[in-house]
């Protein structure tokens, strides 16, 4: 990780925001380091957006403290916080040109016209949309609008950039491009980002660290690799990537499909019949029906061609996690 582990940018301590006894976020602790991209990941209703909005100042928190650059910010209104937020959609003001949209915050800071024009032009270059100052938001595509929204947020030179599912309204191809773009911008500007998403693939692709959330709590925080390889509980194991959850003597054993090895019927830890073979591009998915459950297995395509439907095979678990 390129971020300096000792340099804490934002400290969240015991933050609670209750909408009802079961809805909200409860006693959240999280440190965000300088220059890193942290993703809040979880199913809908887990409180990830609530937490992000609390950081941005759009929810008054009930308890706890949010320190940004060492200063508590939890009692400041959004306009006084050194944060900038990009929403899922409807970020831009349709009655203003792109230039006016982007200059809005800078004008409030009483910067000179020349300075603003220069900064806007530079930022449009950064998001690869030079020369569209005079256009109106309605003349841009959804992806372009989100680029402008990110550019507008970056112009505010925030201490932390908050992104609330900024790509989820875009179609899959553009979403992929935007991820790469965001990663590039983040790395070149060295900016600290908190990113909210329900898409685990997006989280894996973008994040320096991921905080997996469920029902208003953070379940696990770690690098994408550590969360993928060492999920601390069943929920995280099941939510990130594909996972076989096998009941064994009162324990749950979690095995990644790529860690399932197929053997001769007598040699494995378990055995069963192949019920399904599906080509998924460069790898294949094979489903094996054992006595009491269905095991999912990913094999490279070459190997998968050795197996036939209804064949009896043994399964061995190269790597397993017991809960």
């Amino acid at each position: 990780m390129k971020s300096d582990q000792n340099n804490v940018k934002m400290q969240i301590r015991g933050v609670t925001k209750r909408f009802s006894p079961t809805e909200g976020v409860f006693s959240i602790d999280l440190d965000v380091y300088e220059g890193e991209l942290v993703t809040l990941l979880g199913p809908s209703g887990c409180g990830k957006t609530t937490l992000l909005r609390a950081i941005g100042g759009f929810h008054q928190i009930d308890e706890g403290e949010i320190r940004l650059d060492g200063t508590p910010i939890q009692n400041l209104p959004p306009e006084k916080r050194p944060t900038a937020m990009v929403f899922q959609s409807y970020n831009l003001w349709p009655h203003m040109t792109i230039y006016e949209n982007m200059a809005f915050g800078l004008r409030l800071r009483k910067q000179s016209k020349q300075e603003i024009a220069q900064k806007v032009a530079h930022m449009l270059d950064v998001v690869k949309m030079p020369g569209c100052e005079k256009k109106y938001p309605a003349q841009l595509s959804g992806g372009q609008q989100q680029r402008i929204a990110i550019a507008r947020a970056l112009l505010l030179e925030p201490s932390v950039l908050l992104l609330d599912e900024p790509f989820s309204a875009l179609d899959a191809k553009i979403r992929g491009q935007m991820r790469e773009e965001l990663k590039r911008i983040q790395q070149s500007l060295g900016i600290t980002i908190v990113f909210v998403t329900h898409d685990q693939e997006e989280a894996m692709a973008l994040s320096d660290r991921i905080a997996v959330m469920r029902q208003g709590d953070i379940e696990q925080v770690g690098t994408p690799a550590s969360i993928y390889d060492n999920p601390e509980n069943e929920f995280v194991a099941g939510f990130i990537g594909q996972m076989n959850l096998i009941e064994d003597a009162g324990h749950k054993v979690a095995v990644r499909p790529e860690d399932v090895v197929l053997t001769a019927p007598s040699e494995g830890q378990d055995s069963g019949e192949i019920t399904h073979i599906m080509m998924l591009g460069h790898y294949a998915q094979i489903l094996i029906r054992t006595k009491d459950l269905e095991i999912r297995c990913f094999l490279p395509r070459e190997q998968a061609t050795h197996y036939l439907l209804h064949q009896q095979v043994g399964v061995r678990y190269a790597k397993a996690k017991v809960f």
Partner: protein
Amino acid sequence: MKRLYYGLGRRKFIEYILFAVFILFFYGPLCNMLILAFAGEYEYPDVIPQTYGFKWWDYVLSRDNLLSSITTSFLVAVLATAISLAICLPAAYAISRIKFKGRKLVMFSFLLTNAFPKMGIYTAMAVVFYQLNLMGTLPGVLLVHIVNTMLFMTWIPAGAFRNVHQQQEEAARDAGAGPVRTFFQITLPMAFPGIAVAAIYTFLASLEESQGTMLIGLPNIKTMPVELYGIILDFPASGGAVFAIILLIPSIILLVLLRKYVGPDTLSKGLKLR
């Protein structure tokens, strides 16, 4: 006729007839009014005037009380619109943004003034206004006009405010604008079309309001529609026609200027109960 009937087909033929009747109903009286207004000599039994001219225009425009009623009318309409905007816009904003208990009830309450015969309400108002010495005064007339327009002035702007997404306001706060600046620079401009439509309706409704103005405003406040009653009763139809055209001009100008905004779309959006 037979040729036309078979040439067009039955269905089309009936449609054309209905359309012609509709046009006649709609534009017939307007045409008649125009002819009357520019008539010079016009005596029974001729269908159209014998001579044309500006005789009645001279007459109407030379009478002080008619001229002053034009001024009064516009003064009342402008004031009523401005005050109504000041009262109803905050209400509309609250209804669209804040999910308080009884929100729908509040919205329905604006319907109340339109649910009863107007004259009944005016009479009841008159009773109260006597005690408050508001009879025959400008504030009294303004109150009557505002009561009439509150439904449009809250519902349509509320619909317009609802179309401004919360994220768009929050983005402005995020960029450093306080709540007041956000309202005036982001929310208000975006809701402008709806507000403009409501303001036009209010303005036009105020221009043509006569019942309440007559009851509350007489004898001191005489607007154009009130004077029109007198003219219709006391003079030949031509005088009334001239005056009616003068009353019509602002409506036409406003509707042409703002035709971009005034449409079934804005109206239906505003009148949805959400």
